[in-house]
């Protein structure tokens, strides 16, 4: 009897707390389109409960704001368009986030754990004197989060004691919000946020017609076994047949075979596609950290003892220079 009573009280209390909760998502975009990781962040924010506000900052926010406003159930979409946000520097966006926080008193501030989110959120958190939680893979309750440590070899559950929770979420751990069923009006945010601490100079982005690595359904990665950058053509041919993205191990990047933004692993991109094909990759701890949540893993390696075979669903002990073209030919 007594315990039922306590339970009722605690349920009431937690639902009240939930109502008081509010989350700010910092949208990521490139002035032309919304980054897909923001859709994952929206799902994470809905899991937190409470109302959700999205902040879009940039030199040109129209396309991203329009896209995100279609998300179902948002409280508001704030748009801060200014030349000050050129290059999306953390130094310019932090004061904007702080001003927004001051106005609305959010309980949670969320962004995707991309290069953008990783650079920005800790700066915001330090200004608020709270300890941020990085790369969250699950949300147990509004203050209890799950994240991986030691290159994914341990899973830590922690309770954040600070009043404001600043969290970056791992995109591959939350479904993408479909951006349907909503039509939130956008509101302009005024204010001057220019800073002379940092100036964005230029960007050299790798161009590719293949799908983006972090969001691809199929990823084909090459390692040291590829022997040269030219040989990556074998993987590009296979990728084109399968509509796949191409990734690489650190060894392949360090050897100069491919650009470093293709690196999959603890310090590169974390991917979790339906199918991951590792070609000429031994499977070091640091590489596995970036891909072991893939649904199906295929390994092609001539070394039967390679650690990659311990995590692969299907292994082929073969010379990649024969097996990959043969596979491409048979698809």
């Amino acid at each position, binding site marked *: 009897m007594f315990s039922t009573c306590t339970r009722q009280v605690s349920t009431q209390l937690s639902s009240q707390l939930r109502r008081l909760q509010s989350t700010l998502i910092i949208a990521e975009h490139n002035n032309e389109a919304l980054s897909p990781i923001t859709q994952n962040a929206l799902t994470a924010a809905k899991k937190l409960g409470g109302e959700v506000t999205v902040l879009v900052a940039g030199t040109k926010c129209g396309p991203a704001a329009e896209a995100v406003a279609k998300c179902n159930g948002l409280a508001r979409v704030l748009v801060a368009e200014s030349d000050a946000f050129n290059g999306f520097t953390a130094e310019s966006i932090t004061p904007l986030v702080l001003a927004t926080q001051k106005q609305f008193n959010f309980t949670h501030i969320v962004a995707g754990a991309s290069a953008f989110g990783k*650079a920005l959120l*800790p700066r915001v*958190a330090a200004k608020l004197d709270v300890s941020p939680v990085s790369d969250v893979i699950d949300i147990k309750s509004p203050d209890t989060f799950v994240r991986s440590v030691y290159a994914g070899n341990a899973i830590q559950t922690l309770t954040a004691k600070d009043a404001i929770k600043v969290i970056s979420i791992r995109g591959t751990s939350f479904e993408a919000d479909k951006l349907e069923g909503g039509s939130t009006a956008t509101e302009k945010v005024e204010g001057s946020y220019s800073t002379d601490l940092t100036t964005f100079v230029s960007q050299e982005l790798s161009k590719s017609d293949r799908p983006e690595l972090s969001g691809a359904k199929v990823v084909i990665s090459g390692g040291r076994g590829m022997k040269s950058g030219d040989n990556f053509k074998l993987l590009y041919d296979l990728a084109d047949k399968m509509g796949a993205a191409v990734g690489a191990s650190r060894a392949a990047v360090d050897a100069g075979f491919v650009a470093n933004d293709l690196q999959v692993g603890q310090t590169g991109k974390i991917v979790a596609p339906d199918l991951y094909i590792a070609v000429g990759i031994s499977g070091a701890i640091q590489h596995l950290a970036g891909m072991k949540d893939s649904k199906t893993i295929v390994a092609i390696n001539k070394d039967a003892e390679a650690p990659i075979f311990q995590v692969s669903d299907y292994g082929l002990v073969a010379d990649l220079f024969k097996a990959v073209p043969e596979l491409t030919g048979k698809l």
Partner: protein
Amino acid sequence: MARVLVGVKRVIDYAVKIRVKPDKKGVVTDGVKHSMNPFDEIAVEEAVRMKEKKIASEIIAVSCGPAQSQEVIRTALAMGVDKGIHVEIPAAEYETLQPIHVSKILAKIAEKEKIDLIIVGKQAIDDDSNQTAQMTAAVLDWPQATFASHIEKGDKELTVKREVDGGMETIKCKIPAVISADLRLNEPRYATLPNIMKAKKKPIAKMTPKDLGVDISPRIEIVSVEDPPVRQPGVILPDVDALVGKLKEGGHI
């Protein structure tokens, strides 16, 4: 010439296969090989190269942690750092020490030592937080150059190439600044035996967070640390045809 502060962390060696403690409160660290966080080696190397190019005048290495943290300070000294500061944190409190605490400590030391440039690794390979540089920069109100793969120092500014998701970007930031080192910034040198011997004579100052006026009370409570889900063992296929068959079965092609 700039005075440079580098942050170095003692972590379980990157090649060690870690084990979760039976009580699920952490991972086993006793008797396990530790070394300097690989990203911090890169940070130290960059600072030493700055000194060799006469950009840096003095380099100070700081480590926060229990007594053993002095080992990584010695390593930094052997690589060419001038002096060390060990901010001693008792083992029990070290469990909940977080980047927010470390960044406040680094900021205090930077002010005390009149530092122009702080270089730390982009992340520690144990907690994988990737926060300390950003938070230190925020505490000091300095610019941050995160995930740096190339640094060029001008008179009053740095030009830094950063590794970002789609490729690279270049920024300029004012000095004083905080830099976080990415993997491709440089290749750290090995400490030679004579330099290891010389490093023993270099000074390491000891202090506590309290001396610096930094509160290290826990901001988190660790609920549990567990093993990740284990993947079911897979099969070795005889040939490419069998692989094609499996891919069809799985609906991938």
